[in-house]
């Protein structure tokens, strides 16, 4: 699945951020350069190390617009997103 506002990322990945998480990091997308971690959980751990605004943040992770478990695989070209606690409705 390709999001409407994504650009080709080669062997890397872009990660979408939203709401308070985007404000805490100061950006709404992050680039992850290869080599990519194998799993969602490993990728989230790497982002928490690289970005202080994420280190203690609460978020779920989505791959290709579906919530994904930590052990889900990550592949180049996937649409990743960090989902802070939601408050719709």
């Amino acid at each position: 699945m390709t999001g409407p506002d994504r650009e080709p990322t080669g062997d890397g990945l872009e990660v979408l951020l939203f709401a308070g998480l985007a404000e805490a990091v100061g950006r709404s997308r992050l680039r992850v350069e290869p080599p990519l971690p194998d799993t969602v959980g490993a990728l989230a751990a790497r982002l928490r190390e690289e970005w202080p605004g994420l280190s203690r943040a609460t978020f779920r992770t989505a791959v290709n617009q579906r919530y994904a478990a930590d052990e889900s695989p990550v592949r180049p070209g996937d649409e990743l997103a960090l989902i802070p606690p939601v408050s719709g409705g």
Partner: protein
Amino acid sequence: MIAVTQEPIDVDAVLRAVEGPSEGAVALFLGRVRDHARGREVERLDYEAYGGMAEAEMTALAETARREHGAAKVALVHRVGRLEIGDVAVAVAVSSAHRPEAFAACRWLIDTLKERVPIWKKERYEDGEEWIAEHP
């Protein structure tokens, strides 16, 4: 009808979307912007959505409501952007032959939408603003 939209929600259209000659019961829930929350006076809200995923989740919820909760037809619309007090932020409509299923599915849909769908609200107060984190 499943949508995340910047426009004011057309409640008539939401209700028309669940009409049918065999559906004798319609339950509608509207979530409107309140002038207070968490003990503070609210001036307005800003909603942000992860649009594609929000619509995908809402579509999945509607399917589950039909398959498991007795809904015949479902409409789900969430507004995003800047909303003023009294504006409708979300509309959930369900029809079914009889009312127990319509009420149960409508309640399940709004509860589950609030838990799962990637939409966030920022409350604006006289002296500041805050992103609300309700469902981790």
